[in-house]
């Protein structure tokens, strides 16, 4: 693996990790913008704009865009989160330059009104779709409750009302502010020629003008509020919990990730033995979401409405018992082994590597070789876990439940 980096004069970073043995190559444009960079008036604009990039440029219609990608045999898509909008494509090595040129064009979209109006229907359907997925809906609601007025509580999709009210003018204004070259990182992984792809990006994006594209990154520990909602359509109770932890930039984020695995992995964890093995809940998982200068643990549990209270008693006991029912060496070692083999498997595919490379650069501003990541995971000790728990206890937490009527 060979790492390469180039920064264009306008601030756009290009990074790449070359693996000549790979059969494919992946390219991604990571725009450092998402729901937390929105105001209430334009809630959902980042995600809506992500859709609009596929609608074409002055020269390309929406159908032309799809035809261009499909003619290259590319697997392509995009995703939006609270703090990133990522556009990517995977192709055979011979097609990478062309697919990169296409993305460079698309990142300066025409945002036509008729496309904007048609796509509004699709976004509203996507909002309706997630309403029928309580496992996602409960996470969204818990996040909003946990972060309250802090920008990290904003919904990625926005609401039906905010999307209906959004204008193409507001979207253009947001685009002009956020899609500045100094707020974008181009990432390439797999089998490719760095100089050649760099050349494509330089020609395609080199003339874009830099702009101020800051982000407010105030720390907020969360509200620890409790709330619930009853719904006719539900058959099970869906519970989401949130509590604060370290950020992506914090050196202890691997410690937090391992702690979440020890407590809430889908096999052999504390949640597993107390809740799933005993058939009290069919799902119980915990994950660490390390973000820009802020972080949160999220737990998700699906159970019957009869077992809801019992589940919360057990979860509370697990959270509190970590002090007396100490984490063992073998629990930590198992968590490490799981994370390490996941890293090996993920990084064998260029698309898996692309995401890791991209986020490391966006958050840390540096390249982290796989070996460094492995070493950092191996170095975590039991004492590190307890020091983290001391600073970020799991109780109190924010709780949102979706329940059957």
């Amino acid at each position, binding site marked *: 693996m060979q790492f390469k980096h180039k920064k264009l004069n306008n601030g756009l970073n290009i990074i790449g990790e070359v693996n000549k*043995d790979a*059969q*494919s190559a992946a390219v991604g444009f990571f725009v450092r913008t998402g729901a937390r960079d929105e105001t209430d008036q334009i809630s959902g604009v980042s995600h809506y704009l992500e859709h609009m990039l*596929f609608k074409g440029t002055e020269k390309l219609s929406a*159908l032309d865009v*799809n*035809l261009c*990608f*499909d*003619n*290259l*045999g*590319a*697997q*392509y898509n995009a995703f939006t989160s609270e703090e990133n909008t990522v556009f990517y494509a*995977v*192709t*055979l090595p011979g097609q990478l330059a062309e697919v990169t040129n296409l993305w460079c064009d698309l990142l300066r979209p025409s945002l036509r009104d008729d496309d904007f109006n048609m796509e*509004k*229907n*699709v*976004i*509203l*359907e*996507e909002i*309706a*779709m997630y*309403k*029928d*997925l*309580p*496992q996602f809906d409960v996470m969204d609601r818990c996040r909003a409750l946990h972060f309250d007025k802090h920008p990290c509580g904003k919904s990625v999709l926005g609401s039906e009302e905010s999307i209906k009210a959004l204008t193409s003018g507001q979207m253009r204004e947001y685009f002009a502010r956020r899609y500045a070259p100094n707020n974008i990182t181009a990432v390439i992984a797999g089998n490719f020629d760095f100089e050649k792809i760099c050349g494509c990006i330089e020609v395609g994006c080199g003339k874009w003008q830099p702009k101020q594209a800051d982000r407010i990154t105030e720390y907020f520990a969360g509200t620890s509020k409790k709330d619930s909602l009853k719904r006719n*359509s*539900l*058959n*099970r109770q*869906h519970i989401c919990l949130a509590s604060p932890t370290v950020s992506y930039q914090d050196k202890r984020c691997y410690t937090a990730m391992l702690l979440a695995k020890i407590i809430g*992995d889908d*096999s*052999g964890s504390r949640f597993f*033995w107390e809740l799933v*093995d005993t*058939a009290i809940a*069919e799902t119980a998982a915990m994950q660490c979401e390390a973000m820009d200068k802020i972080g949160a643990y999220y737990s998700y549990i*699906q*159970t*019957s409405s009869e077992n809801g209270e019992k589940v919360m008693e057990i979860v509370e006991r697990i959270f509190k018992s970590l002090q007396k029912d100490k984490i063992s060496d*073998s629990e930590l*070692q*198992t968590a490490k*082994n*799981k*994370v*390490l*083999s*996941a890293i*090996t*498997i993920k990084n*064998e*595919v260029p698309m898996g590597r692309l995401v890791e490379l991209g986020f490391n650069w966006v958050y840390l501003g540096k390249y982290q070789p796989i070996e460094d990541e492995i070493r950092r995971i191996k170095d975590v000790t039991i004492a590190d876990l307890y020091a983290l728990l001391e600073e970020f206890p799991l109780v109190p937490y924010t709780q949102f439940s979706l329940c059957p009527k």
Partner: protein
Amino acid sequence: MMEKIDIHKLSNGMTILGVPMAQVQSVAFDFLLPAGAAVVPDGCCGAPAIIEDWIFRGAGGKTSRELTGLLDGLGLHRNSSIESKHITLSAATEAENLDKAIELYADVILKPSLDSEQFEFSKQLAISELAGLDDDPRHKTSILLREHFYPDPLGRSPEGNKEELEKLSAEKCKQIIADNFNVAQTIFAVAGKYDFQKLCRQLEKLFGSEKSKAEKAITPKKQTLGYHHHAHDGSQVHIGIMTPTVPAQSSDYYNARIAVAVLSGGMSSRLFTEVREKRGLCYAVGAKYSSLKEMAGISCYSGTTPDKAQETYDVIIAEMKKLGKDISEDEMKRAKIGLESGLIMQSESTMARAMAAATDFYMLGKVRSLDEIKQQIEKTSVKSVLEFLNKNPFEKFCTTTIGPTKIKPV
């Protein structure tokens, strides 16, 4: 360069397949045990869902905690799934852990403890998971669609049904395991970094002495299709549509795959363009080819709000019906490129390669090399695909909807 596929039969007939991948450090493997949803006796629907959990609750003299500790300690990424004919046990990990992992899986398959106290937990979990399906209407649509499309018992739900799950006993499930965990009919596939000879010696030692059992014959009932609606007070109407087509062994298999790619390959394909891009009817729309050994279908899914459900359904049906009338050379070219490059990209994943080898062997009695698949895709033409579609037109549909309103089917 010709791709190498390793094949070996153990002395009792169990099939061992291997796909070596020079550049990886990981290894993935699958056991296809002939104990799927369709092969269990009538009245036992859902037994495989209990069994796939129960067999991991202690084996080879190890308690449930000891066994889970050892499996997790190897960093294994485990998965179990239930198909029509098989319970599939899958795992992936770093290559040096392979022999230890195989040893533990041999215990799970051949020497599960099958403790009756643990059975109650497995049964309760299966019942809870079935109940949870109501809160995932999209997934439930695909399960019900298969159930309605394939004649019983082929399309039986892997999750089972409540009445039959509740009646199942530990004794009954033990009997199903004894009758169906037939090692001679089991397919084992591995992909990634491994030593095939060493692996075969280990598998012979662990599984080779297991006697072969009689193969189960299944007589499916008559296929009925039709329209089935399931009321659900949600936001969207979830629409599943399935039409019969040729199975994987057919000489027309690649023509069918191209037809599906024209319909729903990339975002320029017909369904995405007509349903989502031009009309804004939905977020999710797509079609896929799905085959059992006996029969196959092309299934479509879309989810949309109630006032748009009828139009969404009508547009999908119209696109399926008119596919056989005309396909352009450009569409053909895109379908081929999409399938071929997808094939190569998928080939970089050890988990995908192992599963593809096992499925190929079960369906075709051999493992196709990437070159062979590529050549077969290349052989198709607009003419061959249109001829296939005219011989096998999309005109009979099985439709399932879940949501607040019904649609009027064709």
